[in-house]
C-alpha cells in the first residue's frame, strides 16, 4: 500500500512538469503584451520597455522557463506581475474561498445526486425516474450564469431570503484567520457570523452543484441498474430482506465505484472551473483569480495557480483510487 502511494507520487512529477511546460508555452502563445495590460491604456512605450526588462520578458523563452522551474523547485511560485506580491501569499485566500464553496457544492451534489440516482434505479420507469432524469438533463444543460441570476432574482430580490453576492455580511466582516470562513467563525465563537456565511454559501453552492448533481445522479442510476439485475440481489430479495436494505446496502456498495470516479473528477472540475459562478456571485475564488490573471497576462500567477489546481486534482484522484480498495476488497494494490 505504502509503496503503491510512493510510486504514484513519483509518477506525478513528470505529469506536473509536462503540465507546467504546456501551460507556460500556451499562455505565451496568446497575443497580448503583459506590460501594456498591466500598465493600462495610459502606458507609455518607455514604461512598457522598462517593465518587460524587469519582468525578464525580453529574454528567450527557455531562459524564462528554467528560471521559473528553478523557483518552483525551491518552493517559490513566483511573483505576480500586476500586484508585485508573491503568488504563494496571494493564492491561499482565493483557494480557501473556492475550497469552501466547492466542498459545500459537492456535498449537496452527492447527497441529492446519489439518492436521486438510487431511487430512479429502484423505481425504474416510474414518474420519479422520468422527472429526475429530465431534471438531470436540464441541470447539465442550463447555463450557470442564467441559473445564478435567476436564483438571485427569486431568492434574494423577490423573497429576500438570501444574499445576492459575496461570502459574508460586509457590514460585519469576518476576521480572517484560516480564510475558511466557516472555520474562522467557529474558532472565534461568532455563530451569528457563521449563520451569515452559511446563507451566503447557499445560492452559489446550489448553482455550482447543479451540473455535478445531475452527472452523479445519472451515473448512480445506470450503475445501480446494472447491479440490480445481478443474481445476488435476487437472492437477497428471495431471502425476504427488506427492499430498502437490499438497495442501499448490497446493491449500492457494488455500484459505488464508478460513482466515486465521477465524484473525484467533478470535485477537480469545481476547484478549477467555478469561474462563471464566482463571477456572478462575486465570490473571490481561485477561478476569478486565474481569470483576472489571464486577462492581464500575469504569467506567473496563471502558471502557478494552474499548477496548484493540477496538484490538488491528481491528489483527489489518488485518494479516489485508494478508496476503491477500501470499498471493494477485490481490488489490490501491489
Amino acid at each position, binding site marked *: 500500500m505504502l509503496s503503491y502511494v510512493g510510486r504514484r507520487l513519483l509518477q506525478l512529477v513528470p505529469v506536473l512538469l509536462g503540465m507546467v511546460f504546456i501551460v507556460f508555452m500556451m499562455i505565451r502563445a496568446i497575443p497580448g503584451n503583459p*506590460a501594456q495590460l498591466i500598465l493600462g491604456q495610459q502606458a*507609455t512605450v*518607455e514604461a512598457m520597455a522598462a517593465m518587460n526588462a524587469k519582468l525578464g520578458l525580453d529574454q528567450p523563452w527557455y531562459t524564462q522557463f528554467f528560471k521559473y522551474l528553478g523557483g518552483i523547485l525551491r518552493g517559490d511560485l513566483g511573483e505576480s506581475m500586476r500586484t508585485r506580491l508573491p503568488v504563494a501569499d496571494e493564492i491561499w485566500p*482565493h483557494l480557501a474561498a473556492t475550497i469552501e464553496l466547492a466542498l459545500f457544492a459537492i456535498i449537496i451534489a452527492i447527497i441529492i445526486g446519489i439518492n436521486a440516482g438510487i431511487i430512479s434505479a429502484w423505481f425504474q420507469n*416510474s414518474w420519479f425516474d422520468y422527472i429526475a432524469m429530465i431534471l438531470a438533463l436540464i441541470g447539465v444543460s442550463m447555463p450557470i450564469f442564467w441559473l445564478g441570476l435567476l436564483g438571485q432574482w427569486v431568492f434574494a430580490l423577490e423573497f429576500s431570503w438570501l444574499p445576492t*453576492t459575496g461570502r459574508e455580511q460586509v457590514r460585519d466582516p469576518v476576521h480572517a484567520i484560516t480564510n475558511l470562513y466557516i472555520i474562522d467563525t467557529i474558532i472565534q465563537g461568532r455563530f451569528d457570523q457563521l449563520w451569515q456565511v452559511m446563507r451566503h454559501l447557499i445560492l452559489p453552492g446550489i448553482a455550482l452543484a447543479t451540473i455535478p448533481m445531475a452527472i452523479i445522479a445519472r451515473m448512480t442510476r445506470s450503475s445501480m441498474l446494472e447491479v440490480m439485475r445481478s443474481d445476488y440481489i435476487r437472492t437477497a430479495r428471495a431471502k425476504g430482506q427488506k427492499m430498502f436494505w437490499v438497495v442501499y446496502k448490497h446493491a449500492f456498495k457494488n455500484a459505488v465505484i464508478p460513482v466515486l470516479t465521477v465524484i473525484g473528477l467533478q470535485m477537480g472540475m469545481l476547484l478549477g472551473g467555478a469561474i462563471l459562478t464566482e463571477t456572478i456571485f*462575486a465570490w473571490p475564488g481561485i477561478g*476569478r483569480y486565474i481569470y483576472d490573471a489571464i486577462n492581464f497576462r500575469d504569467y506567473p500567477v496563471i502558471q502557478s495557480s494552474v499548477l496548484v489546481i493540477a496538484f490538488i486534482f491528481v491528489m483527489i484522484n489518488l485518494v479516489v483510487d485508494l478508496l476503491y480498495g477500501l470499498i471493494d476488497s477485490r481490488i489490490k494494490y501491489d
Partner: protein
Amino acid sequence: MSRKRMWPVALILLLVLSTALAACGKGSSSSKEDTLVFGRGNDSTSLDPSRVTEGETFKVTVNLYETLLNFGEQDTTIQPGLAKEWNTDDGLTYTFQLEEGVKFHDGTDFNAEAVVANFERWANGDADKFPYYSSMFGGFKGDEGHVIESVTADGEYTVIIKLKRPQAPFLKNIAMSMFAIASPTAFAKGDDEFARNPVGTGPFEFVEWKPNESITIKKFDGYWQKGLPKLNKIVFRSIPDNSARLNALLAGEIDLADGINPSDAGKIEGDDKLQLIKRPSMNIGYLGLTVTRPPFDKKEVRQALNHAIDKETIINSFFEGQANAAKNPMPPSISGYNDDIEPYEYNPEKAKELLAKAGYPNGFEMELWAMPVPRPYMPDGAKVAEVIQSNLADIGIKAKIVSYEWGTYLDKASKGEADAFMLGWTGDNGDADNFLYVLLDEDNIGSNNYTYFKNAKMHDLFIEAQTEVDEDKRIELYKKAQEIIHEEAPWVPLAHSTPLLAAKKELTGFLPHPTGSDLLSKVEFK
C-alpha cells in the same frame, strides 16, 4: 398509495422542506447610518497610487491620501489641497504654502520635508515602478525629457518646485490622484509592504483588504478638516457582473454602485428606493481608422466613413440617450474645445461621392474591430459595430466584424493590424494635451496612437502648447489642431457618454467626479 410509492414522495418533500428552512433567514439587515458599501466592477491592484494606472485603485486611494492641489468637486479646475496657496512668476519656479498641523494616519507630521521625500521617491524610480510619473513629467532624474529640476523645502511649510522648462498642465498634473503625498515613514518600509498598508493624510484610513472581495477604510479621527468625514466606515466591494451588482443594490446589500448599464437606467429611476446618479462626462468613444492601411491612407475615404455613420441612432439605441454625439477627439468640458467645428453630417450620398472621388465607386471590403468589453465610453461594442456595419453597407462597403479578447485586441490594434477599430479614452486631468497629444500625435505611435496618424503641423502645435503658459494662447493652438484633425479625419468620433451610478435614496453629498475617482468625505445618509 402503496408504501412502495411513498418513498419518493417523502424524499422530495424532505428536500423541499430542507431547502426552504435553510433559506428562511432574516433579510439583509437595515443599513446603519454610518457605513457605506460601494459596489464596483473590480478590485484594486495596489493601494499605492503612484505605482499603478488603473482607475479602480484611485477610487479607493483618493479617500486615503491627499494631493498638494485638488480638482474642483465636479470639474478639473485647480483648487487648494494640502497646499493652501501657490504661485509662480515665470512658469518655471512654483512656490507652495502648505497647510499646517496636518498629520499622516501613522502620526508622522506632514510638512515640506515629507513633500520633498515623495518627489524624491518618484524621481529616483523608473518607468516600470512609477509609470504615471514618467508620462506626466517626461521621465526621471537624469533623463533628457524630465521636466522637474528640483523640489526643495524652504522652512517647515514652504515647498519650491523648479522646472527645466515651462509645463502648461503642471498644476493639473500635481492634482492627479497618483501624485498623492504619502507618509515617508510608511514607504521607507519598502514599496511592496507599503502597497498593502497605505498611509496618507486623507479623511479615511486603511483597515483591511480582502483580495477580490472587499477593501475597508474607516474614519481618520485626526483629519485636519474639521467636521469631516461624515461616514464612519466605507467598504469597497468588487462585484464583477453588472447585473449581479444591480441585484445587490436592489437587495440592499450595497448602498452605491457604479458601472450601471444604460439599459438599466429606467429601472432605477422607476424604483422609489433608489436614485440614478450621472457622472459628468470626460471621455470619448471613437472608431479609429488606421492610416497606414489602404484604403484608409486616403483622406476622402476617412471622410466618407465620417459621413456614413449615423451617430444619433447609435446613441439612442445603445447609450439609451445617456451620451452626446462627438465631433472632436475630446469632450466639450475641456478647455480648448473647438466648438466652431462643423460636424460631418450623416449623409450617405455625400459619403458615396467621396468614395467615388477616392477611386472606390463600388466600395471595398474591410475588417471592423468591435470592442469585446463594456467600457463607460462604449457600453456594448458588438451591437454598435453591427449598426456601423449596416451604415457602411449602405455606401457599398462590406465590413466584416471581428473581435478578440481585450488583451489581444489592444495588442494587435497598437501594432496597426486593424483596418478600423473601436476604442475610447477617459481623461486623467482634464487637459486637452491628455486627449489630443496622447491619442493622435506621432510621439505616441506604438503606445496610444493606434491609427498611426502623423501630421507635422499638428505636432508643432502640440509641442508649442505644452510649454505655453498663457491659457488663451494655448486654447488657440488646440483649436487649430482640432481643425487639422477634423479635416484629416483619422477617427470617426462617436460619443461622449455619461457614466451612470445608482444609490439608495437616503444617500446625500455624493458628487461623482469626471475622472472617476470620487472623494467620499462629504457623503452621508439622511
